[in-house]
């Protein structure tokens, strides 16, 4: 064994009380780091899995925005910036289909709606619901986390909505309905769109439960995309061009609604004060009496030509706010994002690809916040530990001044003294750090063996399941050990400087 290690190890034994002080600090340090980092990794993994599996996928593509965008909209000051639709959707989709790492993709529109129940007491409810407009088949292929517990999943082309059990329970609690609201019941959704508020009556077709709990995901209601488009004023079908006569245009351009409805549609008596005949009005509004066959036919003719509608519906199917991708591995996501953003830039497409954290928005920050709090606490503990260790090491150097002086007198260079002092703290760090690491693993094993149960959905997210099972990471465990060794080295800076200042003449001061 090299003499430096021999001296280091024997000095540890010789100065056992000081070694023990430093050692205990190191053991506790590694223990905290190993257990803390592993639990945070567990939380990280749990949250990542919950988000990626539940509703973000690995990659989110949106139109470019000035402010941050997540699946819940644009986080702009005052909410002034609207979520853009994805430009060149078909081109992007075609490109993604050729990307080797992309396993599946789906589209989405996000909206918020005030949910109400017509039969409910006026003083009950309403409450704000989060709506994801989806294409059921594609969406289910990507996110298989929702298990239908009642009713059925949305079917392509059908209108309706599925709600989480959490949502249904909350709704029943708010509205206090008897019997409870469930599958087959209709709810009223009032949603803000580009053309003001719109109210739609939507049937609950299914109730789901998540395989892996997620706080945000449990509040999502999935609605057919077309209904949400209409509610948000995104439906291009309304923008189909209809050729109107001069008189019809004149009528629509009037700003006097009172004048328009002064017509008694049932009696047929008109008191119009503008140059418009009753027939003209009814031919447009189809409010003519049932016995006016000619007028009805005229209206049918107007709407019989649905070419423009068909084109619009086709265009609508390409009108999405989000495109969500699942990659074959989580690691591949970063590469896919980089490639896509480069491709967008090269092709002048005003879109952006981001990771699941961006997609999850504020909900993904739970682990980050916990990690920051933990790291701040660790930094504070590390500072205290460094101070204590520095003091102990300084005492050690002072006590060994004559010994160091003797070594210098015998011909030891400063480099030798540096190596000796560094080897000693390194040896302490390695030995006690290893003990701390083993204890940390033991504590985690015990935590896993006891199996702490998550008593609420939030804990279930943090635990990445109903029971806390720490996810071991060799990198994290060895990293903790390394951090403590580095802390030891930092604590050794000042004592080492003192040791290097010891002159050979100090050897003569030994008594």
């Amino acid at each position, binding site marked *: 064994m090299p003499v430096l290690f*021999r*001296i280091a190890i024997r000095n540890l034994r010789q100065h056992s009380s000081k070694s023990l002080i430093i050692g205990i600090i190191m053991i506790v340090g590694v223990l905290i780091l190993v257990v803390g980092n592993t639990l945070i990794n567990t939380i990280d993994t749990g949250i990542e899995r919950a988000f990626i599996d539940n509703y973000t996928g690995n990659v989110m593509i949106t139109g470019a925005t000035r402010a941050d965008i997540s699946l819940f909209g644009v986080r702009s000051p005052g909410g002034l910036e609207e979520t853009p639709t994805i430009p060149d959707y078909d081109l992007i989709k075609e490109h993604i289909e050729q990307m080797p790492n992309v396993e599946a993709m789906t589209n989405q529109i996000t909206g918020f709606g005030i949910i109400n129940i017509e039969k409910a007491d006026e003083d009950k409810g309403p409450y704000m619901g989060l709506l994801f407009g989806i294409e059921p088949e594609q969406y289910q292929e990507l996110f298989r986390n929702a298990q239908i517990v009642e009713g059925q999943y949305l079917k392509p082309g059908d209108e309706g909505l599925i709600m989480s059990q959490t949502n249904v329970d909350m709704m029943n609690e708010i509205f206090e309905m008897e019997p409870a609201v469930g599958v087959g019941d209709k709810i009223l959704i009032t949603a803000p769109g580009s053309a003001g508020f719109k109210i739609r009556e939507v049937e609950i077709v299914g109730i789901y439960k998540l395989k892996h709990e997620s706080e945000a995901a449990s509040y999502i209601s999935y609605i057919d995309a077309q209904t949400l488009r209409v509610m948000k004023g995104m439906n291009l079908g309304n923008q189909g061009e209809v050729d109107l006569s001069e008189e019809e245009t004149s009528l629509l351009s009037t700003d006097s609604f009172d004048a328009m409805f002064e017509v008694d549609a049932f009696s047929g008596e008109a008191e119009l004060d503008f140059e418009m005949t009753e027939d003209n009005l009814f031919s447009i509004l189809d409010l003519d009496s049932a016995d006016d066959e000619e007028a009805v036919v005229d209206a049918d003719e107007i709407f019989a030509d649905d070419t423009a509608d068909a084109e619009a519906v086709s265009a609508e199917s390409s009108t999405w706010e989000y495109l969500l991708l699942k990659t074959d591995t989580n690691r591949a996501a970063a590469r896919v994002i980089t490639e896509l953003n480069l491709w967008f830039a090269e092709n002048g497409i005003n879109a952006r690809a981001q990771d699941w954290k961006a997609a999850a928005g504020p909900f993904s920050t739970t682990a980050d916040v916990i990690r920051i709090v933990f790291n701040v606490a660790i930094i504070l503990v590390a500072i205290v530990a460094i101070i204590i260790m520095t003091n102990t090491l300084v005492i050690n150097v002072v006590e060994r001044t004559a010994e160091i002086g003797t070594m210098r007198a015998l011909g030891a260079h400063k480099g030798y003294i540096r190596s000796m002092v560094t080897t000693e703290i390194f040896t302490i760090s390695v030995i006690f750090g290893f003990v701390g690491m083993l204890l940390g693993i033991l504590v985690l094993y015990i935590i896993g063996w006891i199996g702490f149960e998550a008593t609420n959905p939030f804990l279930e997210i943090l635990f990445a399941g109903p029971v806390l099972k720490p996810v071991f990471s060799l990198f994290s465990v060895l990293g903790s050990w390394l951090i403590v060794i580095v802390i030891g080295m930092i604590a050794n800076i000042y004592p080492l400087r003192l040791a290097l200042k010891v002159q050979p003449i100090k*050897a003569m001061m030994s008594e």
Partner: protein
Amino acid sequence: MAIVELKDVKKIYPLGKTEVHAVKGVSFEICKGDFISIAGPSGSGKSTILNMIGCIDVPTEGTVMINGTETGGLSDKIITDLRHEVLGFIFQSFNLIPVLNVYENIEFPLLLGKSKMTKVEKSDWIDMLIEEVGLKDWSNHKPNELSGGQRQRVAIARALVTKPEIVLADEPTANLDSVTSDAIINLMKKVNRDLGTTFIFSTHDPSIVGVADHIIRLRDGLISENYRQDDARACRE
């Protein structure tokens, strides 16, 4: 030839706002192979002179020359190499490394620099030194398991292990009883005679001063007597 030469060496230590003139201008030569005693009462400056010869302290004025080289102004690295290769030290309090055993303490200086000896040669040489100082049965013992005399024997063996030209001993018998003191001085004398190593030791014990063949007596930082047994005035070439 003078292996050590001091020319008008002065050493002043600051002591608060005053100064202590430990050595007030000393000049002498030490010849190769000398067994020299620097004698004098406490505070006469003998340890200070020894420290300056040993390159662990520097004079305030004057020059100290080792083998014709002036030591003042040399870099820390060169001075350290000089101490390692040319000088050996025996301390009043033995200054053994407490965590190393007898063998390892003696071996220690050999580990500090490059040695021309092979591993086997080193081992044989250390074993011989251990035997020479009479500690054959104690080589695995730690310093705290040895008596004062035994410790000083280890220190002598350690001082000799690098085969230095000069061994400096600062009051080597100060912490020993008279019998052990005699034994230690005799051992040093034997090594001086057998290996031709120059020994410079300080002492205030009149009984061991007489063993030296060159005696320098100090009083209040000045030489009061510079006496050679062979009556030679200068070192022979």
